[in-house]
């Protein structure tokens, strides 16, 4: 009897360790975006929502048009491999068209639980927080993120809120 209990306990503990401690599985991103190559522009040049709204957002391909006159290699490979765009009649679309109409299926990797109401605008514009404090140093990343680079938990939020004298009212974030 004791042995059976012991075995069950071993199974349960290993299951728990597997679920909790293992880092989240890597995901596939549609375009192998190289962050390190883009260090000349600021984060908000592409993640525009960060200064203006709650969500920073993943940039549309249209944002590439601001700098790129021709499609960058990885983008072209991915987009031309995809299904033909409606209305294109099989013709090869121009870079301009391609960029405006493409909807790559990006996967969000840095996500908070649904009940945490985080506002980028509040932290970026008002509190002047550095992006790296939550997202890690993206300037060294040579890929699009395949898993969350920094583990975000409430202790991290609260320690900063305490030192900065920001609100510690629960409903400020949870509602």
């Amino acid at each position, binding site marked *: 009897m004791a*042995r059976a209990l012991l075995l069950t306990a071993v199974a*349960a*503990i*290993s299951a728990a360790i597997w*679920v909790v401690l*293992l880092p989240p599985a890597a995901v596939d991103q549609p375009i192998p975006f190289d962050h390190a190559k883009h260090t000349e522009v600021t984060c908000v040049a592409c993640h525009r929502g960060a200064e203006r709204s709650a*969500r920073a*957002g993943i940039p549309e391909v249209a944002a590439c048009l601001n700098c790129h006159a021709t499609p960058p290699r990885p983008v072209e490979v991915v987009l031309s491999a995809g299904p033909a765009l409606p209305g294109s009649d099989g013709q090869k679309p121009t870079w301009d068209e391609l960029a405006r109409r493409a909807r790559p299926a990006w996967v969000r990797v840095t996500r908070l639980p649904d009940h945490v109401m985080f506002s980028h605008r509040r932290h970026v514009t008002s509190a002047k927080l550095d992006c790296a404090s939550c997202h890690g140093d993206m300037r060294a990343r040579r890929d699009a993120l395949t898993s969350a680079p920094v583990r975000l938990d409430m202790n991290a939020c609260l320690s900063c809120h305490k030192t900065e004298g920001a609100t510690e009212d629960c409903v400020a974030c949870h509602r």
Partner: protein
Amino acid sequence: MPEPVTRREFLSYSGAALTGVTLGQLGRQWLASTTPAVVHASGSEVWATSVCRECPASCGLRARMIGGVPVKLEGSPLCPIGRGRLCAKGQASLESYFDPDRLIGPARRVGERGAGRWEPIPWPKALDLVTAQIRESVSAGRPGLVALAVDEDGPPADAWSDAWRAIGARTFRTPIDTATRLRPRFEALTGVNGDPMFDLERASHVLSFGAPIVETWLSPVWAQRAFGRFRRGPSRQRGRLVQIDARRSATARKADEWLSVLPEHQALLAYGIASVLLREDRVQRGLLDEFGGNLREFQRDVIPHYTPDQVAAATGIPVVTILRLGRDLADSPRPVVVVAADANNSLIDAVFTLNALIGAFDRPGGVFVAPASIDRRGVEDEPLEALGDLKPRVVALADPSPFRTLSASPDLGRLLEGARFVVSLSPYLDETAAFADLLLPTHTPLESWHCAVPAPAVAAETRSIAMPAVKPRLDTADRLSLVASIARRIGAPEQATDEPISTERIARGEIDRLWRLRRGGPYSVVYETEWLEQLERGGWWAPAAESREDFTNRILQAGGWIDPYFQAGQIEQSLRERRGLRFALPVAIPAVPPAKIEIKPVDGAGRDGFGKGATLRLVTFTPAVVSLAGNPNQPVIYELLGQPDAAPWQPWAELHPETAARLGIESGHRIRITSRVATIEAMAVLVEGMLSDVVAVASVPSVPGAGRWARVIEGDARSLVALADPAGPCLVVVARA
């Protein structure tokens, strides 16, 4: 020294650990699958302008868009009707856009009519079908084709009728309950061919004959705002409201005094009050002395025939009450008498007569003429009642309003069953689909262009104009473009060469017309609208834009156009030109008071023959939250039904507590209501002060073939009266179910 680990133990523990890891991995996969991929719409917040189409008031809307998806509707602060406020129906209309049971494209009926089985067909084929049927019916001669009902007013509504008439159709329109319905009787008395407008906000005393002021009256959001200010405005006395109503409506509940009088007896009471005013010489002399017209004759008819005694005997209202109603009305500084838009003609006559006697015409807190209503093109459609015994071969339906309007009595079901081909041009599965052979789904309001003439209520000329707030979500079409392409296929002469009409073209055309008027401007905040009025009053006008394109953009951004210039005194001017008031001479009071129904409980009227029943008069009413033209499939609306007395998601019936007691019915019981043609069940609500021989039943559309929410509603009061004798009162047997 510890015991060495045996081979058996080693295998057991590693097996357990492996099982744990396998379970853990399965758990991780399960957790990953439960985390929703996209929880919310994301993207930046944008406010889009649109127009509410749930009733003819046509309030301006703002839709909060997140990433191109509307998530909330608010009233537009620029719109002079709602000034940023919006009613329950208007807010709920967001659910119509997202309705999971909306039509996804054109469909043809398969199987029996009304069985609700459809097959999708492509647009060109659908238009061919309807064209072939119309060709056949036109060659068969009139009245081959009938187009029914658009529950709105404005250039697109007129264009709809024009397009149909161009291919030989007769067009009918549902009577919409705006002040325009009061116009013929108002004109008969004053000679003004314009819409009357009640200045509720500044009135000190309101005597209301069945006017649903806080529910659906004339322009509901305007009426609610005006009511709020009438009650408790800054630096003014609290306004007093007396409601004459057959049932305890929401307005009756808000009133300081409620008198329960059946609609057919309300005119008697009104003339009784007029007789008190004349007899005691409490009338306002000003206008009457100058433009008395046939006042003398009227006085001679009314005073002796409508004595308080006789009126009391006929209506059941005590003599002292009638005297007090008259005196209170005359003693108040700014009284006004108001009436429901769907009241009968003699009651409307009596109400305007009272307003003339108390000097309410052209006075603050009284009755004015709505600006620009005088020279506007009148509706050329025939009223629904004129359908009569028509046997059309092809019927086109724009919205379900003919089915929902209780005062429109013709038996539509029979008419449509007799028709060879019925086509519905509604975005939803509603009553029109129950009879249709072909569904041509149109855009919902948020996806449409708008150019509506709002129901007359505010003292300004207005147009609510907006472009689509969102792209069409499904394979739907613009209603006007559809009629235009049908007409083109038929080969209507004026359609062949012209640019095809569409709501967008009509709306842009109207903006061009407004630009050329060189007056008014885009909807604007209160302060700017008042400034514009001051300018125009001084003979100035500053163009709102430099070019026509700029003007168009500004109108579309603001959601409408307003000319706030308003001139009082139209009634007096008309009377001066026409030599006085022409009072309608009331018919003599019925010699015998109408018999009150004696309540005789009979056994065995309930379900399975048990329970006591009694014959009562039926009064049906539409709850304020039920839309007369919109989608029936809005769950939030069904949750509002019957609050705060009855339960949501079902119709209810109101009874006098004593009557209920005699039938063994308590509040909350389910009761059966049986008329000559149908039986329905409803939840009983007991109302103190009601007439004891009346049962008032809420009319909630139950639409069997419709969406998932509309089809679960049971007990449609409309079925009780569908074939009832329109002349006499409708009698029903009420018993506990």
